[in-house]
């Protein structure tokens, strides 16, 4: 069968050593454990955020208020040893409030650029759908190109640049829903919800014990890596082995979103790339030098659910994007191995 390890068709990325992978897995596991120490009951969101960060993407978090989105971003920044800023999006927020702008310095008798909050390594864009389209576009440009242009001058954003944008699924009045083209810039859309009761009780006990979400120093969160380390981890992940059959699997999954009768507009090739990158990070996080089909399936829903438009009648019937992804995953055969040794 095509792509079998002994058939001569091999991975396209250069190989990665076991030592590098073990380091990746160790750092990933440590970072995840540290964040989960303060953010209880949101293991999936933590893992997805770390995967997105190490894949070089951004995350759109959708969930009700008060479940720890800010804490997730702050603790991530702390554990990863990078800077953190937060923007609360409101209808009157201007693009310059995000990117920064030139202000006149009387002493220097010149305009001086004052960077906006976007110049951070972990940025929390809270309730991004409450800002008007122009302001959203300013942020989304920064997310896509990792640079900001103000008054004709382009400034690069710091590396790594990771945005955690949030939106509330319940209150839709007075919001500016993100257009599909802009949603596509998010590597993942992660749905989070209230934690189960048992977790909530543990959380209350933590607060009784003196935990303060606003004071992460007191919690003693350990920094497990720094910006340079993150760049190194990203390079490691990119070299994780991917068999051609898996590329075909990814392309088939994404292609099916364009053929599904419930879908008006299917996912773009950017979705395929996102699935590939995420699969490589997941494999590395599990200490493997190669991607398996499970890595692709694991993150297919968060990577794809915001990247296609449902048909109006399907939406009217209550079909959700996750249903479509689920149906596609159940229909596409997992690539298998040959039996010729």
């Amino acid at each position, binding site marked *: 069968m095509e792509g079998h390890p002994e058939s001569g068709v091999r991975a396209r990325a250069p190989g990665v050593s076991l030592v590098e992978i073990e380091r990746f897995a160790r750092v990933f596991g440590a970072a995840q454990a540290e964040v989960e120490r303060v953010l209880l009951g949101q293991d*999936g969101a933590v893992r*997805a955020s770390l995967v997105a960060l190490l894949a070089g993407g951004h995350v759109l978090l959708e969930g009700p208020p008060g479940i720890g989105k800010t804490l997730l971003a702050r603790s991530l920044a702390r554990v990863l040893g990078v800077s953190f800023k937060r923007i609360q999006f409101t209808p009157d927020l201007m693009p310059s409030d995000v990117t920064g702008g030139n202000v006149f310095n009387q002493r220097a008798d010149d305009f001086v650029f004052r960077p906006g909050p976007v110049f951070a390594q972990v940025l929390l864009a809270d309730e991004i759908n409450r800002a008007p389209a122009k302001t959203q576009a300013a942020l989304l440009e920064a997310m896509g190109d990792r640079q900001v242009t103000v008054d004709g001058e382009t400034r690069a954003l710091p590396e790594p640049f990771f945005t955690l944008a949030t939106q509330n699924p319940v209150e839709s009045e007075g919001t500016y829903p993100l257009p599909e083209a802009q949603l596509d810039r998010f590597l993942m859309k992660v749905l989070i919800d209230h934690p189960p009761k048992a977790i909530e009780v543990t959380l209350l006990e933590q607060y009784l014990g003196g935990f303060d979400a606003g004071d992460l120093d007191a919690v003693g969160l350990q920094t497990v890596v720094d910006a340079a380390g993150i760049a190194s981890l990203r390079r490691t992940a990119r070299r994780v082995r991917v068999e051609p059959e898996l590329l075909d699997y990814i392309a088939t999954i994404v292609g099916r979103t364009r053929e599904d009768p419930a879908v008006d507009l299917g996912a773009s090739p950017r979705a395929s790339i996102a699935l590939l990158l995420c699969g490589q990070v997941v494999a590395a996080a599990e200490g493997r030098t*190669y991607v398996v089909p499970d890595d692709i399936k*694991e993150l297919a*829903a968060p990577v794809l659910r915001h990247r296609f438009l449902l048909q109006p009648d399907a939406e009217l019937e209550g079909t959700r994007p996750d249903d479509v992804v689920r149906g596609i995953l159940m229909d596409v055969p997992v690539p298998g191995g040959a039996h010729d040794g």
Partner: protein
Amino acid sequence: MRAGWIVWGILVGCGGSEPEPKPEPEPEPRIPSALDDSAFRFCHVPGANAEEALRWCGLLKDPGPGRCPGLRATCEDGVVAEDPVFSSGCQGDRRGQGPADRLASAPERPPDEPGGCDALELSDPEELGLGLLLRWVVAIGIVASIAILFRVLWGTFGLRRRHPPAPVASVVEGEEEDEPLPDVPDAPGDALLAAARAALAEGRVGEAALLARGAALRHLGDTGRLRLHRSRTDREYVRSLRLEPGLQGDLREILVAVEQHRWGGDPLGEPQAGRALDAVARLLSHGIVGLALWVGIAAGPAEAQTPQRYGPDGDAALLEVLEAHGYEAGWRLRSLGDLSEDTDALILDLSEVSPSPDQWAMIRAWTRGGGVLLVGGDATVGIPELGERASLGLEHTAELAPPLRGVGLSPPRWPGGPLYAFTGGQPWVIPAGDGALGLVAVVDLGGGVVVGIADPRLLWNGAFVHPANEAFVGDLLYLGQGLRGWPLPTPARVQLATRAAATPSSGSSSPNPLASMSNAHLLPFVLQLLATWALLGLWRGWPFAPLRDPPEAGRLSFSEHVQALGMRWFRLGASRYASVQLASLWLARLGPSGLQLAAQRHGRSPQEAKAWVEGLITLVDEPKGPDDPADLERMEELWKVTQSPE
């Protein structure tokens, strides 16, 4: 320590019974007999089945003392041994009869009495204790298994109701159909394992690993532990075995090894492949234990309904005699009306089976087509060529007629002599000095043959106490094949229709519905049905749950997107269609009065609300019309009304 417990358990199970007296060692070599099986207790245990066993004492004159010592002891005592456990009422009314009376009433086999003495005769105190213990263990195991299944089922759906979906779709638990995997060979697990071992022995390590994976998955799929589907990954298979950690560990070991080979390109070492094969072997043995338990559920109670088969009047020995003589013998469990070509010879015991006229016609047609029918009892109704079945009345001895003389066969023996003979057909065994009658008579019927045995006791277990009978019955068909060219292949496929179950029309009726249910022996079926139902529930979802509203998230997304949808429909030029659909939905859900009330709560006067609802009804009744911006307003109004907090 454990051995001590086992011994203690056995002692408790035996209930302190006396040790069974061992028979004296055999001084001379003896011919193996079908009755050597300890299941034929009348033959080995003095006093066992004494009521029936005493009828067969006459056959013990010739054989050596090593044959059926239990029956010999029973006959020598001459009394019916009272079973200390089952003496109350179990010997029935026949206990008062003497041996002569019993012999006189022998030819018709006593009917089986469900739940009566026959069922109990099998058990002596030792077997009772151990058997009871084992049955209790199996029963508790079954109940516990079903309880665990239900608990898992409940927990699964309970969790699904209470917890939000995981943000990362790690596993898609679908409602998919089972589907063969393209990369798992369609062959039994053990065959694939053997192929894997062969590949490993020849140094094809990669192929061995892949075959091992196929063996494991195929076996687990065939035994119902995994749902094989083309969309499932190996790790999903491993995760789905979370309730069986032993199996999960073995499967993980196999699949991780294969995974490295398939996706990592790592050359697999022989030791690792060998470990994977060992894991497959363990996994297959797990399955065998599970299968044995499953079969045990069915076989345990089913065995309880056939102890009479091993009594002196039973028919289990006939099967063993035939098998010992090289026949492919088996019970016929289907109706006699559909005899197929997979049967070369059919043995009918008419003391148990009473074919209907239609069935006789079918049997005759089958025989004419080349079948060999060996029929014991009064077969003259279906095979009139056998003449009449005459009662002999006096004690006779049997001798072989010319076709069988000189072949080295001894004539068969009946206890107290044969009681009946046929007047027609060609006699092969005759009453001594009377060549006109046939104790065993042969009739050629078309391309086949009918062998009639007038006194069917020759086919019962007790008859095989005498080795001559065993040899006669065992050799009869092949002798006919050799002497007369009967149409029998070697080995011949013989079916025994010696039980009432073989023909529904011949079953004796039950006195009441409860007895009928008891006769049906439905317990294993019900247990298996429950277990299957629970498994299907786990697999397919809860089939009988009350209908519920869609989850909160679904409702919210539905209502909040109405405006956006309306715009999209309007752009598509179908806003009328969308508004009609939405109005229909809410009219169906709330009804006109409910919708009117909702409109009133939203601020309309009763008249305005009524007019508004009537407008909606009109819209639904006349759905066709041009698209109109008013459709959007109507949809928005409808949305606001139905979103009203009350």
